[in-house]
């Protein structure tokens, strides 16, 4: 018989607010095997853990049940606590009375009743627990970084500098990401290209880094330390190792009218193109949807002009298999579509643009060579209206936009306004805002300079409507502080569009079995304490894929993710999960059903001699599970007709005990 201790956590008021924790502790006292039961404000705190440790010693506990948050949150914590007190860590069971009880049930009586039942199920299970010892698996000392923006670049450089090989997979023809499209960066106003492109060159030249540009991850199998990844290298119809990036083909290509995505469609590129001068890898790419040669076999000019013979119209998508020990997600963000915000006339006027488009308009390498000209007629705008929070901080009921704050817009708008006033002092600049949020180092000083030194008109209030009339944009807005309606004739309206995770993130999360929140941002293993790790072991998060971030924050998170990866790759062996399948040889029929369903090939058969009840010996074929290969899914346990195959930590008896406790 076990001696079980029950520890009910209040989690401050998170649990205690809707669950009567004393009643839960009291009710579980009379469960079979329970010799001690208590509750405490924060079981995961040092003081709470000490209560557990002391109780283990004092009451000679053989098993413990912690009624607290999800096991996905603190199971590891409490296992360590148990181990520190000399108890096998697998003698710990968690009753999830927070995420799956107090947070979803508002009524105290109902919440308490359910918490007691969940506690009883955990007690019933722990009564059948047995001490377990984990095995060990080797670590593939190579990291994969998915996304080649500043987040991915920084993570890759940091991992590579620590001496581990890194592969970057970038779906665009070049790395660089959004930062490569920016003009200046706040709050220091140094040029984005000046600080980014040297890093891109570092990546290209680093002996430990390989770049798979124009590529995607199509399949991920395996587990921490041992991922098997399939990378699809899209055909770019240019031999990457031959092309010198001279750019001759991009000048001769007759298909001139392809919208240039790097400049957000504000100018055109050719069918064969290099996104920008500092692209890495600096290799041309043929757009198969635009190229006449690929579409209907007519042209072939680029191949004729290429002096090194790099053009290959017959190139096929290539699939590369590689093993990794760790995967970093750095898939970044995009501005949201302005389709649902027609009040700002984005679709009606070329002179209503997003902030990212504004970046390109002011960028020396942009479509206007850095001169601020209206997209419609190329004139200098005299009055510019910036609209903040377009699609950010929206009411959920509005069914458009995002509920969250996009975080970066206040600062880049201050930057835009300041730069306009600096270069073109004759231009009137208005910024309409809900709040100005500048909580970063030197951020508020920066914003105040925009207002005080550069004379930008900051107006608290939202723009209600933008109506194009002739060559002006009639802006109707309200000034909340003076309670007045404003009518401004603007030449250019700039919308600070909310940002959202890249569309590729969700399918990727699916492949990685990594969790996401309702906005498709990746979820951290812990929002405060493990911000760069995904709950899925071996998957790490870098940059805006986890939430809106500016460059300094992205770079620091990228470094943090790298340090976590380095910590993982520095290990020669990972301690495995002891919750794996095992076969009772006396009951095993040797029928091979388990072997057929095992996804890891962890089951083999051996002939073994058995002494039978009638004192004869027979040689029987029996299953044997390789503990290093088994991952503990349990598929074999159900395939096994005799029930010889069982899963440690989730045994049939344990699960049925839980069922019984719940149904009692």
């Amino acid at each position: 018989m076990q001696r079980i201790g029950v520890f009910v956590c209040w989690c401050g008021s998170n649990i205690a607010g809707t669950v009567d924790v004393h009643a839960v502790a009291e009710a579980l006292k009379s469960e079979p095997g329970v010799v001690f039961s208590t509750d405490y404000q924060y079981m995961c705190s040092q003081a709470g853990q000490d209560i557990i440790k002391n109780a283990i010693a004092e009451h000679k506990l053989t098993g413990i049940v912690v009624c607290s948050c999800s096991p996905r949150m603190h199971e590891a914590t409490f296992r360590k606590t148990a181990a520190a007190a000399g108890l096998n860590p697998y003698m710990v069971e968690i009753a999830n009375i927070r995420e799956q009880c107090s947070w979803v049930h508002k009524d105290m009586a109902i919440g308490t009743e359910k918490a007691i039942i969940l506690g009883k199920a955990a007690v019933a299970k722990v009564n059948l627990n047995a001490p377990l010892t984990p095995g060990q698996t080797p670590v593939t000392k190579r990291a994969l970084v998915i996304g080649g923006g500043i987040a991915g670049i920084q993570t890759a450089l940091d991992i590579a500098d620590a001496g581990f090989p890194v592969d970057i997979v970038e779906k665009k023809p070049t790395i660089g990401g959004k930062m490569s499209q920016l003009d200046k960066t706040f709050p220091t106003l140094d040029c984005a290209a000046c600080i980014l492109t040297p890093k891109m060159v570092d990546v290209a030249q680093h002996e430990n880094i390989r770049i798979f540009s124009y590529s995607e991850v199509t399949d991920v199998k395996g587990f921490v330390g041992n991922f098997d990844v399939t990378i699809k290298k899209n055909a770019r119809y240019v031999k990457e190792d031959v092309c010198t990036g001279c750019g001759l083909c991009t000048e001769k290509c007759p298909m001139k009218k392809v919208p240039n995505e790097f400049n957000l469609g504000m100018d055109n590129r050719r069918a064969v193109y290099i996104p920008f001068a500092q692209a890495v890898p600096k290799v041309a790419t043929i757009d198969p949807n635009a190229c006449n040669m690929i579409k209907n076999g007519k042209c072939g000019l680029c191949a004729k002009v290429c002096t090194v013979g790099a053009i290959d119209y017959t190139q096929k998508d290539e699939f590369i298999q590689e093993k990794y020990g760790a995967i970093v997600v750095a898939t970044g963000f995009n501005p949201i579509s302005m389709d649902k915000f027609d009040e700002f006339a984005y679709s009606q006027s070329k002179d209503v643009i997003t902030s990212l488009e504004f970046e390109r308009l002011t960028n020396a390498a942009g479509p206007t060579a850095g001169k601020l000209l209206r997209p419609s007629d190329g004139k200098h705008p005299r009055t510019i209206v910036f609209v903040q929070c377009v699609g950010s901080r929206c009411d959920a009921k509005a069914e458009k936009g995002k509920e969250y704050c996009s975080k970066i817009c206040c600062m880049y708008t201050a930057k835009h306004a300041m730069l306009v006033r600096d270069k073109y002092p004759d231009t009137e600049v208005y910024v309409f805002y809900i709040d100005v949020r500048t909580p970063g180092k030197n951020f508020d000083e920066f914003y105040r300079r925009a207002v005080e030194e550069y004379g930008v008109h900051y107006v608290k209030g939202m723009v209600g409507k933008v109506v194009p009339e002739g060559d002006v944009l009639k802006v109707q807005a309200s000034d909340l502080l003076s309670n007045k309606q404003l009518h401004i004739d603007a030449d250019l309206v700039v919308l600070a569009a909310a940002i959202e995770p890249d569309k590729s993130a969700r399918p990727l999360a699916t492949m990685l079995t990594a969790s996401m929140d309702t906005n498709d941002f990746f979820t951290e293993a812990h929002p405060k304490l493990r911000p760069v790790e995904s709950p899925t072991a071996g998957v790490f998060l870098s940059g805006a894929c986890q939430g809106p971030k500016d460059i300094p924050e992205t770079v620091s998170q990228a470094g943090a993710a790298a340090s976590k990866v380095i910590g993982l790759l520095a290990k020669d062996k990972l301690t495995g999960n002891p919750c794996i399948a095992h076969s009772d040889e006396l009951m095993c029929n040797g029928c091979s059903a388990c072997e057929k369903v095992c996804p890891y090939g962890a089951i083999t058969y051996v002939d073994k001699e058995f002494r039978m009840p009638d004192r004869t010996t027979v040689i029987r074929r029996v299953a044997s599970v390789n503990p290093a290969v088994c991952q503990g899914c349990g598929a074999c346990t159900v395939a096994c007709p005799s029930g010889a195959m069982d899963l440690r930590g989730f045994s049939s008896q344990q699960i049925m005990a839980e069922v019984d406790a719940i149904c009692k």
Partner: protein
Amino acid sequence: MQVNGYKPLIVAFCCNWCSYAGADLAGNNRLNYPADVKIIRVPCSCRVNPMFVLRAFQRGADGVIICGCHPGDCHYTSGNYYTRRRMALLFSMLDYLGIERERTRVEWVSAAEGAKFAATMNEFTETVAALGENKRLEDLRCKQ
């Protein structure tokens, strides 16, 4: 939840990697669903033996739902495909024996689908509550 005065008991088997995390996400986002739903964590939906499902019914559960990763997304690559076959056959057999088919369900809920988890549990509980007590599969000896 009560329908016609009946409060059902729902046993939900959730795989650790997707659906259990999805249930946690429903909690994180404070998305309510009936307390009648009691979750049992299993490593993978393929760990759910038909015997567990029958056991739950035998002990008085009114509905049993098995939640796993979406097909193709199994943490163990193929576990939920076996679940899909096994449960399709088991549920078909229960239906063949005259057990209300609405009492059994397999639903794929990813770790990101907290809202789907809550919505599924709300809808399933309501469906089962409307059927009333599970009289056809329960073992009367197990009722206290």
